[in-house]
């Protein structure tokens, strides 16, 4: 049973549709800009923030902006986009909706009187409830919360449900916000106070970004000619907040994702992709770990990029938003620059895209790694239908 991409939408600091996002990325724009918000951080910082007033303008014709939190509006904007597309009936009992988020409405904690929404809304399960009520679904909406692999892992899970023929369609929506709460990344010294520079030898940390992105999967190959192949989730079993030094967990995830794709009967033969959209958070250790893993697998010459320089690290949305842009890259035969990358890190050489270029990709590997030691990997291929 094959699973195909049928539709997607991206809402980020770069735009309100996937096309708008991709067009701006192609032309070299980034949604990351400098912000001065003293309740977030004492010093100015770079982040990809969605303006809530503009979001309200985009949402006000199908919902009351005062009734929903910023993150809920971002999710419901995607739900509305899917409803408008007419491609899938999201209320059909054979349609799975799955959300991925690390923190849900955590921004309410720093608003006066919780923004007037009440403390129930702080529970991560409330996010699923909001979607359930908005759409009038009878079934509960599961939320995957696996740190920074949440979005990619949710896509892998959704694909399995379709393979098992439990559902005909799946809608995966990843979402998270920059908020005063995320100053915790600064306390871990993981935040950069410059635009982030994934894989660059002078990289010094992450930027954060708001995003909500949705991908619709189905059993029919219609509209996009992209098939999801094998995926896998692993754990480093090494450290709760630092990546493994050997990249073993990520290697395991890629190896098993390759085996799950049934490329070869030889389990030791791991498929080499044309293009890798890696995690590339721009921390010293994450990017170094990935480089070790890709070198070990013999993938260091594969065209590789990170998209964090366009939106920042969008946490629970990252796996979804980046998979969508990878799909767009395959569809349009363009690989995007790894924004922020200038100088090769010779300690861990990789073939990082220093500028956007025409390139035909038939096999893409998407990876993610996160706190808690988790890793995820997924292969995508172009179909010739």
């Amino acid at each position, binding site marked *: 049973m094959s699973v195909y991409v049928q539709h997607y939408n991206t809402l980020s600091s770069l735009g309100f549709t996937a096309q708008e996002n991709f067009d701006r990325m192609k032309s070299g724009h980034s949604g990351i800009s400098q912000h001065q918000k003293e309740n977030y951080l004492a010093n100015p910082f770079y982040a990809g923030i969605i303006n809530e007033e503009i979001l309200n303008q985009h949402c006000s014709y199908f919902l009351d902006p005062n009734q929903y939190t910023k993150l809920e509006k971002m999710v419901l904007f995607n739900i509305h986009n899917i409803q408008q597309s007419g491609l899938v009936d999201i209320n059909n009992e054979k349609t799975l909706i799955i959300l991925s988020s690390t923190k849900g409405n955590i921004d309410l904690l720093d608003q006066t009187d919780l923004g007037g929404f009440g403390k129930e809304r702080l529970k991560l399960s409330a996010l699923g409830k909001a979607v359930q009520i908005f759409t009038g679904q009878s079934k509960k909406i599961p939320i995957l919360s696996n740190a920074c692999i949440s979005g990619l892992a949710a896509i892998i899970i959704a694909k399995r449900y379709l393979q098992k023929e439990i559902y005909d369609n799946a809608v995966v929506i990843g979402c998270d916000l920059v908020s005063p709460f995320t100053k915790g990344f600064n306390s871990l010294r993981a935040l950069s106070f410059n635009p982030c520079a994934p894989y660059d030898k002078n990289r010094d940390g992450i930027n954060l970004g708001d995003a909500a992105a949705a991908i619709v999967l189905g059993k029919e190959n219609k509209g996009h000619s992209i098939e999801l192949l094998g995926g896998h989730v692993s754990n480093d*079993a090494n450290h*709760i907040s630092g990546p493994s030094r050997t990249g073993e967990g990520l290697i395991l995830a890629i190896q098993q994702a390759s085996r799950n794709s049934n490329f070869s009967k030889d389990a030791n033969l791991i498929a080499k992709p044309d293009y890798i959209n890696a995690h590339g958070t721009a921390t010293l250790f994450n990017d170094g770990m990935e480089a070790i893993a890709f070198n070990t697998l013999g993938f260091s010459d594969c065209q590789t990029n990170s998209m964090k320089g366009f939106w920042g690290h969008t946490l629970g949305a990252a796996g979804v938003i980046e998979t969508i842009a990878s799909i767009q890259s395959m569809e349009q035969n363009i690989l995007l620059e790894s924004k922020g990358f200038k100088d090769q890190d010779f300690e861990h050489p990789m073939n990082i895209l220093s500028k956007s270029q025409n390139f035909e990709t038939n096999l893409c590997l998407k990876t993610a790694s996160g706190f808690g030691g988790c890793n995820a990997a997924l292969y995508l291929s172009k179909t010739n239908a």
Partner: protein
Amino acid sequence: MPKLSEIYISNWVHFNEKEMSLKGVPIHQNQTDSELKDFLVEVYKSSGLSYPKFYKMDNLSKSAFISAHYLTHESEVWKVSGESKKGVLIFNSVSSLETDYNFHKTYSPKDSIPSPSLFVYTLPNILIGEICIYHKIKGENLFFISESFDADEILAQCEQIFEFNALDQLICGWVDSFESKSNATLFLMERKVKQNESAAIKKLNKSNLELLYLNKN
């Protein structure tokens, strides 16, 4: 690939602020009415574990970690299973909200310094990381948020995990900790079980999950 009908629940454990029980039998009770954080340390000390990292965990991770210890410590199969053949699947409703509040308290007063050690625990899957590190589990590991314990949802995920990962064993269950109360129920699910253990094992199905969750059996 194993089917759901080939998976068994070989052990199960309950933990809350009042007691720790194994297969429904209390093994440690909170006789002095200690607070949850102190009771967790009491249970840890009586467990024979020597793992100082336990002390830095939040109540959510401690509850999960100590429950996972009792769930697996007598299983011979657990000790010899391959690292990639073991996984962890956990559900709860409030994520890490208690630690979120505690972290928030460290940075909300003006000019105060947010606590990095608390921030790390503001992700629910950190508890999975803690379990994976101690038990050297490298297989699939997922954390789902759900409004309440839902046997159907757990079964559906278990089926996928066993089938698509060819796992031998899975630590699976519900772990919530909020407002100084914990509610953990973990199941050890496996596909290879010894015949002579058959009296003590349960088939993995909805009614057994619900019965065992309610501690009725």
